[in-house]
């Protein structure tokens, strides 16, 4: 394999894009449009969610901290009901009549006061509000968590001094103030790169076949592996550029919070672009014309869109469908990019996803090369 020949291919692909405004628009403007539509559709749309409060706090009246917190709940988001026991409240969440149970421990006010004045004998559990939300739909559970946290912060601020109150929403793994757009933005970026890279390679390669350029290349010293590698580098670069634009849009337009290392996220996305490029080349050998190539699009896009955890966690997907999720490269990319951006995870924690993507990349690139090497 000679790097200079592969690099010639990379340059060629990038030049092709540079000279073609239509393709440039497809790469950058279409995903921006998509993320904007989703952003507008899902930002702040959650209203009037029924939550069940179990208040075990023995303090009553003005001195009750729990009542203060509850009175600070944003009532446009939370529709508060009460239950006498945690099991009753959880039952309501389970049967779907409520979206979350909010449990204050007994002696809550007393414990907070005690800990605030330095008594270490009181366990932190006694000052912790437990939030048991229906996590299958982050679209709903996110605003609940945010609303509760806001109310707690407001209450503590009103006290005018440090108070050791915490909210345990430990099932909510992404940032406590996260909104739904924070949750799905990394996923949308991955899907956009996946879909457009596959589509572009597919169309470019069908073009190489129909225009005869592939004949010229296959009758030249350029090796099939160099052709595939050259395309891979080009689309890796394009993938990074795309995700940079999309991520900037998400931050500027929708205030998505980036906790982790952006470069690591870009690395993962470039890897996903290379996987998609391999897939695009493979599919191109089954299409004779551009119109036939386009027909592959739903097969490539729909499962990734619905089953790789972009809008709801994999855990919320029916068990019999989950194997499909696990054979989709996007599942690993979405998970890794989301973990980096929202949880601030490093390579030490996302490496299983990266390894999975590396395996996909090797297999797809090898198959793409083999299919090109095949002579009728």
């Amino acid at each position: 394999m000679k790097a200079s020949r592969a690099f010639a291919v990379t340059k060629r692909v990038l030049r092709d894009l540079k000279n073609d405004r239509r393709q440039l628009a497809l790469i950058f403007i279409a995903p921006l449009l998509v993320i904007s539509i989703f952003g507008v559709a899902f930002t702040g749309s959650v209203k009037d969610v029924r939550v069940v409060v179990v208040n075990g706090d023995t303090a009553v009246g003005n001195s009750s901290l729990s009542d203060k917190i509850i009175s600070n709940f944003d009532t446009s988001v939370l529709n508060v009901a009460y239950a006498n026991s945690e099991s009753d409240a959880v039952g309501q969440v389970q049967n779907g009549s409520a979206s979350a149970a909010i449990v204050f421990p007994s002696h809550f006010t007393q414990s907070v006061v005690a800990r605030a004045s330095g008594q270490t004998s009181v366990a932190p559990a006694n000052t912790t509000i437990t939030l048991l939300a229906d996590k299958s739909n982050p679209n709903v559970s996110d605003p609940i968590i945010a609303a509760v946290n806001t109310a707690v912060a407001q209450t503590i601020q009103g006290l005018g001094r440090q108070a050791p109150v915490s909210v345990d929403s430990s099932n909510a793994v992404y940032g406590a103030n996260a909104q739904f757009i924070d949750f799905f933005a990394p996923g949308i970026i991955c899907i956009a790169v996946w879909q457009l890279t596959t589509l572009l390679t597919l169309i470019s390669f069908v073009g190489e076949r129909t225009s005869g350029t592939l004949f010229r290349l296959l009758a030249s010293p350029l090796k099939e592996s160099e052709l595939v590698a050259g395309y891979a580098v080009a689309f890796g670069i394009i993938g990074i550029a795309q995700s940079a634009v999309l991520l900037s849009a998400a931050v500027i337009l929708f205030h998505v919070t980036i906790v982790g290392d952006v470069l690591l996220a870009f690395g993962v996305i470039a890897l996903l672009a290379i996987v998609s490029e391999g897939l695009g080349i493979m599919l191109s050998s089954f299409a004779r014309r551009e119109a036939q190539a386009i027909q592959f699009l739903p097969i490539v896009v729909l499962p990734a869109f619905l089953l790789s955890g972009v809008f709801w966690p994999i855990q919320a997907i029916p068990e019999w469908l989950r194997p499909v999720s696990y054979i989709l490269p996007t599942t690993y990319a979405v998970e890794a990019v989301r973990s980096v951006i929202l949880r601030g995870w490093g390579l030490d924690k996302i490496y299983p996803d990266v390894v999975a993507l590396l395996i996909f990349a090797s297999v797809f690139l090898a198959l793409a090369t083999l299919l090109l090497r095949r002579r009728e």
Partner: protein
Amino acid sequence: MKDDVCIRNLEKDFDGFKAVNNLSLRVKHGEIYGLLGPNGAGKTTAIRILCGLLRPSSGEAYVLGTKVPDPGVVQNIGYMPQELALYRNLTVHENLAFYGEVFGLSKQQIETREQALLKLVDLETSRNLLIDELSGGMQHRISLACTLLHQPQVLFLDEPTVGVDPDLRASFWRYFEELRDAGITMLITTHYMDEARHCDRIGFMRGGRLIAEGSARELLELTHTDSLEDAFLVYSRTEELQ
């Protein structure tokens, strides 16, 4: 095996259909060989086998003494596909530079050869135009330039003059003759029978077979005709009767 191109009992099957049927022919070093025949005769298929793009179903093909397909011999082959085989979103220069790099040419080599070739095809002023902005004939001329850039020893030109105006066609053939005199071997397909007189030898192809072969003069004399068109028809009818 002294001949630059040698095909022996070559067959190519496409799902039971024989596109090339027991074809044998040789092209000598420094010779222009014209392959003539109607649509579907198998000319392109034969050339694709010689360029290593298709695998023969049976029989064998040699280029410069090497059995094809072979990854080494391609450096010395110049292939002009029947399709345009250019990147439409790239400029003339970008196309030439890309193919040059693929064949391992240096920047310097690309520059000098590009100049000479653009002069040859009379498109010096179009260097920075997109292929899409050129007329069909102009595109064809750039396709030829891309084929010649790496200075191959053997040329396989699949209808190099289609869509090219008569003046330029004449100058193409003059250039092919120059190349031949410099020792380059050429296998050229064409539908223009009148052009075939520039070839040292001609092969008539029909239904995947070679039905006649010889110099233009020989073919005319043997068939008692005064055009290659008529000569082809004579051979074609004889073949049909058999």
